[in-house]
């Protein structure tokens, strides 16, 4: 302990039993721990996102300004030409309309149903676990499986749904031929797969609402629907906003359902009646027209930001109406 010897007189002189240098070091380590740890803990996400999220994003912008096909060695800079072509492209506007239509048809009923189901489950019931597990069952099923199964169910000649409709005198609907019918079929597939998942997210939030609020409301004579409107929905508002935004973003990116529903054709039906924006990107990706596909990607991004932003404002606003 020769190295520590010089400390000792000082410690003795000041009458302190603890060695100050060691205390200083411990203090520094502690400070480093307290100040540095948070950044170290959130770093993995940001590093990964920079490498595999942000970099591709920026690079897409670069590619979209070029005439970039995989077959050509040269990628000449063309400025905003791709975007100019895109805005005049009827297929693009068709895809934008289809995306919006399928998005609204699938998301709005789905979220209302999910909140209601979560509300039903947020109380003591017999066979709770059974109901919760079956609720999540569709989400366990892959997109590929869902579309293979539902394509069969929606079949014109041998499908179960047309067979049931025939009881009511509705004759063989060709689900994948019309605009409205194909949008409805795809929306039903999306709803079937995601309603239970969102109900579980809502249920998790509802369980954090203090039980006393409901007890007080029950004593005051408030019914179940009143409790849902006056207590549950305002209390889980942040979760509702979150689910609305993520569902919107998911709905704007729908790709696998129309791709598989159209027997792996990236045009989304013979007349492009259910080609979504993401599928339109894929069509040009398969054509190896990377420049144009990147331009569509950016337009889709703008589209998503606008739609999600509008939904955010709408969901926030409803607070006043509900409370």
């Amino acid at each position, binding site marked *: 302990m020769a190295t520590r010897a010089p400390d000792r007189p000082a410690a003795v002189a000041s009458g302190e039993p603890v060695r100050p240098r060691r205390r200083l070091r411990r203090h520094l380590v502690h400070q480093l721990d307290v100040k540095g740890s948070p950044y170290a803990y959130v770093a993995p996400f940001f590093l990964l996102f920079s490498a595999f999220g942000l970099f591709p994003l920026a690079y897409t912008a670069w590619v979209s300004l070029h005439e970039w096909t995989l077959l050509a060695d040269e990628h000449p800079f063309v400025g905003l030409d791709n975007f100019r072509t895109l805005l005049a492209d009827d297929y693009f506007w068709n895809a934008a309309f289809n995306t919006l239509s399928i998005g609204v048809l699938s998301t709005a009923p789905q979220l209302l149903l999910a909140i209601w189901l979560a509300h039903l489950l947020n*109380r003591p019931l017999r066979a709770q676990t059974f109901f919760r597990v079956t609720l999540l069952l569709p989400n366990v099923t*892959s997109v*590929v499986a869902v579309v293979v199964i539902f394509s069969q169910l929606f079949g014109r000649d041998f499908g179960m749904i047309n067979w049931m409709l025939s009881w009511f005198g509705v004759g063989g609907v060709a689900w994948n031929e019309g605009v409205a019918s194909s949008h409805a079929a795809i929306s039903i597939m999306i709803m079937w797969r995601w309603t239970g998942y969102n109900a579980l997210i809502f249920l998790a939030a509802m369980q954090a609402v203090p039980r006393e609020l409901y007890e007080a409301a029950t004593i005051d004579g408030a019914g179940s629907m009143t409790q849902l409107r006056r207590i549950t929905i305002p209390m889980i508002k942040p979760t509702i906003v979150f689910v609305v935004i993520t569902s919107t973003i998911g709905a704007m990116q729908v790709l696998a359902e129309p791709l598989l529903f159209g027997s792996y054709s990236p045009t989304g039906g013979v007349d492009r009646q259910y080609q979504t924006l993401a599928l339109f990107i894929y069509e040009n990706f398969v054509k190896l027209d990377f420049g144009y596909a990147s331009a569509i990607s950016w337009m889709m991004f703008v589209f998503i930001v606008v739609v*999600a932003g509008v939904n955010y404002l709408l969901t926030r606003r409803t607070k006043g109406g509900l409370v």
Partner: protein
Amino acid sequence: MTAPRPTARTARRGAPGGARRLTYLTLLAVAFFSAVPLYYSVVVASRDNAALAEVPPPLLPGGNFFANVARVFDTVPFALALANSVLVSGTIALAVMFFSTLAGFAFAKLRFRGRNALLLLTVATMMVPTQLGIIPLYMLMVKLEWTGTMYALIVPALVNAFGVFFMTQYLSRALPTELLEAGRVDGCTTWGLFWHVVLPVARPAAAVLGMLTFMSAWNDYFWPLVVLTPENPTVQVALSTLAAGYVNDYVLGLAGTALGTLPLVIVFGLLGKQIIGGIMQGAVKG
């Protein structure tokens, strides 16, 4: 503490008999519609293509299931696909649980400069559509020589914004700050707090997150389709090869689907119970 277990008495008092019966009927109907498409796919998968033309459609499974399954294994490398999917989904689920709890702890309970801005940034990254970057991401994988390998699926998915946000939400409610302060007084480092205090509290939510992540990784379709080859596929890529090559062979397609979905349904049937029970228990303890 944050969410006391609902007591049976309050709710029974709250809901009259008729309303309760309606609740059960509704939930039973939902359970029915959740299960029917899966059940029907098993029915078709256990018959032959001729059965599809029958009116009314067959409602009970036939005897051809194992013959059809054998055809699936003959047509695509399904055993390899299953092994790949287990490896990819398992690794991703564990990594997402760990990194999300770590980041969620920091965002929910630690004080640091730029915390709110970084959390907002994390949520904002959820706005980035995955298709947007798929072309450059593919180029990147070519550069890294990861195309056709499982690295291309695993590495970009090790942690995601949804997981971080999910754990932040949960921990900010379920983790009592006093518990952390007590740990600090006892001389815990931040890592020690994470290990001894945060992880036990986070376990129920992390289990749910892990399950959801495993399922979405297992069912991920588009990116694996782009980056993998049919020779070294995941289950979903193998299924799409199966259905793409045999558009009219619904039976083969549905036998593959049943085979690719059943392992997940079984695991979920076994673990889902514990995990959903864990949410409630954890909420009481927390």
